[in-house]
């Protein structure tokens, strides 16, 4: 093909005249990279580049990018999705939109680099082949790639520096990114591209480099590190950490307002209703030394039966045993505060931090369950919670709640009662602390702080205190639970 070399040389000539910073406008991506990084072209270098031509000089010509012939005699397509909007900066070969014709989805990629100035079609409207799709404002140094040769030209440029080929695998990267890779001795074939069509971006090279030198720490989803004792670490039952979840935050430096919706709205309404209840708090500390020993003995047996045993099943069962003696804590009071309903079932809720947010599924009828059965049910709820699949049946019907905030951190807290319940307990982390034994010796003890809140309209301090003492005695001396187990 005689015309091919000519086209190639034009490309090279184009490259000589405008080095990488000249061929396209100054993209925001480059500017936001770390100025301290050796690879970042600092703005101060810019004026010294002889051939530099920045995009913020007078705007270049606006070229209409027409819909190329798709083949098979197709004359019109339906625009299904836009990947860009007016004002976006695009590079050559970035995806512009998705069109559909006759059972085929076609990704239309940009022929020019520049700024999108106009979209010619709405989603679901019809576009004719040969008609303009978008207007792109270029900086005037684009060489026109003839439409009908689009396949051959690309085949040729592949021989040049446009695409690196490694063992037949095409690696997409702009010349700027290639140079960065070359300067840092990075093989493009080893980098995973996160751009369109798997294109390797500058960020991908930088991430690859930091992973090589260990500069970035692996994501820490395990908040058990916070507890002082290793057994306490194993106690953690609330599934993975809020750090993994990033609620959308306004752009730095600017105020951002967004409406509360869905889950956030629901939580706000619940808490507004909760704070209508007059709360009082009661706190205490529990010595779990004997429980820690018991659990380590039983853990393996439970594991063999396929169930992960934490401390929560013991706490939950002790709560239920306590509620048998103090049924008013398992009650509900109506809005006008004229009737108390004593609930027969102990449906004990467990506050859980899930990817969706704070959810409180409950274990039904704890009064009739063994510790092993409670552990199995907790495993099931935790698995569903982690997958975001808790259903209405699991989330409603609770009569008492326990929050294991200590798995993330903290000692004493002031939990908020979840209506229509009348009490709630929050457990701090288990700490190993020195305590005096009955013979005045200093010994190592596993201490956990507990904070209760109760509805002062129907519950008084003495009731809460006695319930807490009973609960504490069951946990400080687990053998006593055996006496009252039903």
């Amino acid at each position, binding site marked *: 093909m005689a015309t091919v070399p000519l086209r190639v040389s034009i490309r090279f000539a184009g490259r000589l005249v405008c080095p990488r910073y000249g061929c396209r406008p100054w993209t925001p991506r480059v500017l936001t990279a770390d100025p301290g990084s050796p690879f970042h072209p600092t703005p101060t270098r810019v004026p010294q580049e002889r051939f530099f031509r920045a995009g913020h000089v007078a705007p270049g010509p606006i070229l209409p990018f027409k819909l190329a012939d*798709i*083949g098979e005699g197709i004359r019109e397509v339906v625009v*299904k*999705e836009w990947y860009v909007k007016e004002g976006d900066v695009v590079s050559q*070969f970035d995806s512009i939109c*998705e069109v*559909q014709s006759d*059972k*085929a*989805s*076609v*990704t239309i*990629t940009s022929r020019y680099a520049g700024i999108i100035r106009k979209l010619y079609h709405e*989603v*679901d409207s019809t576009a004719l082949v040969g008609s303009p799709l978008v207007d792109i404002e270029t900086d005037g140094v684009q060489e026109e790639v003839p439409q009908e040769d689009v*396949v051959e030209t*690309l*085949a040729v440029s*592949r021989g040049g520096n446009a695409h690196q*080929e490694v*063992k*037949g*695998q*095409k*690696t997409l990267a702009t010349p700027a990114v290639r140079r960065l890779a070359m300067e840092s001795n990075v093989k493009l074939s*080893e980098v*995973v*591209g996160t751009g369109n*069509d*798997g294109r390797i971006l500058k960020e991908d090279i930088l991430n690859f480099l930091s992973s090589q030198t260990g500069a970035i720490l692996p994501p820490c989803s395990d908040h058990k590190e916070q507890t002082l004792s290793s057994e306490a670490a194993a106690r953690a039952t609330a599934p993975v950490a809020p750090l993994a979840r990033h609620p959308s935050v306004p752009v730095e430096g600017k105020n951002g307002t967004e*409406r*509360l*919706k*869905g*889950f956030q*709205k*629901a*939580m706000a*309404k*619940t808490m*507004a*209703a*909760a704070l209508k209840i007059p709360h009082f708090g009661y706190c205490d500390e529990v010595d779990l030394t004997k429980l820690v020993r018991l659990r380590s003995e039983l853990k393996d047996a439970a594991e063999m039966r396929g169930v992960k045993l934490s401390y929560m099943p013991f706490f939950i069962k002790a709560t239920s045993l306590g509620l048998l003696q103090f049924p008013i804590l398992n009650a509900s009071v*109506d*809005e006008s505060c004229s009737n108390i309903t004593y609930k027969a079932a102990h449906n004990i809720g467990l506050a859980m931090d899930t990817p*969706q*947010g704070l*959810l*409180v599924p409950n274990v039904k009828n704890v009064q009739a369950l063994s510790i092993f059965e409670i552990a199995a049910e907790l495993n099931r709820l935790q698995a569903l919670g982690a997958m*975001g*699949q*808790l*259903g*209405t049946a*699991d*989330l*409603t019907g609770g009569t008492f709640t326990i929050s294991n905030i200590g798995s993330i951190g903290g000692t004493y807290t002031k939990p908020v009662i*979840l*209506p*229509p319940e009348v009490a709630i307990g929050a457990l701090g982390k288990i700490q190993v602390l020195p305590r005096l034994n009955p013979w005045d010796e200093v010994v190592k003890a596993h201490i956990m702080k507990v904070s209760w809140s109760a509805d002062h309209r129907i519950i008084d301090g003495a009731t809460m205190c006695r319930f807490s003492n009973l609960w504490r005695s069951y946990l400080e001396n687990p053998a006593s639970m055996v006496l009252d187990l039903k």
Partner: protein
Amino acid sequence: ASVPYSHTERETFLAEHCRPGVVLKSASCDIFQNLAFEDWIHAHVDVEKRSILFMCRNRPAVVIGRHQNPWQECNVPLARERGIPVARRRSGGGTVFHDLGNVNLTFFSSRKRYDRQRNLRIVTRALRQLSPNLDVHATERFDILLNKQFKISGTAAKLGRTGAYHHCTLLCSADRALLSATLRSACAAGIRSNATPSVAAPVRNLRDEDPTLNCDAVMEAVASQYYADFGLSAPAVVVDPTDELSHPGIRRITQELQAWDWVFGKTPAFSLDTSFEVQCEACDTKVNLTVGVKSGAIETCSIESPQDWLPPAMCRELSGLMVGSRFRPSDMAVIFTAFLRANPQSHELENKMHILCEKVVALM
């Protein structure tokens, strides 16, 4: 016969000077892994000099086209209940039901060599080699019909900048009962949207016509016919779509394809207008539900219930809470729980609310 995947095979598969056509057979029966593999080849492999045929079979799954509405195309709650995943592929076209009796073929080639009829001819020739009297032919719409009336294959395609792929299914021995139950939407009548609708057609299994036509035989025949087209004779190469080392980035693609935001959240905006019957004082009345959903999230919602069943204020409160949450059962459960906590009700009303919630969730 297929040979086990080895390092030298991979080198051969990727090397420039290798055969102009390669047949790859997937070691996985997971729809997401196989869709991710297709995506990966489309994005990373140079098909200018070498075309690829990728074959796989999947455990039961519903695969909808890129611009379709899953609630319109299949029974989402039933699929969820039966553990049948719903997947959205990157190419356009209609909905297909995959199971181990359904063979999937994907023909990768350069834009220049993209020719769907030629690919379908390879398939029909292969079938006729196995069963010479079989009446199969490809239509203008790129379907393959058996005995001129039953659809045994549907086609979809995706064209990128330099490469293209054409994939089609082939019904060998699929579970037709499961297929029709799953592909029957519960609420299609009430859905109004611009999503691409599927065109239903009577289907038949190849095995019903000729018992020797099982999936393995068909795949082998198509593979050898494909190689014959290039004047070669070679075994298919078995590939593992979970191998991140050989296919860097494929795990991320698999996760993206499984995400709710892709499968359901990518649905073009639609409105659903439906009603369900509830018991009211020993007679049945209707509750109307109208939701507008965009990007998988509820934008507008209204619940109309007869006065004596549920007070309108409650319905308004609940529908107000639903706005902004996703159109999915777990989100509905959270909203509903919060509603009950914030609005304590009498036992009777609470039961009715539970019934209402159940009916709404049964649509999602």
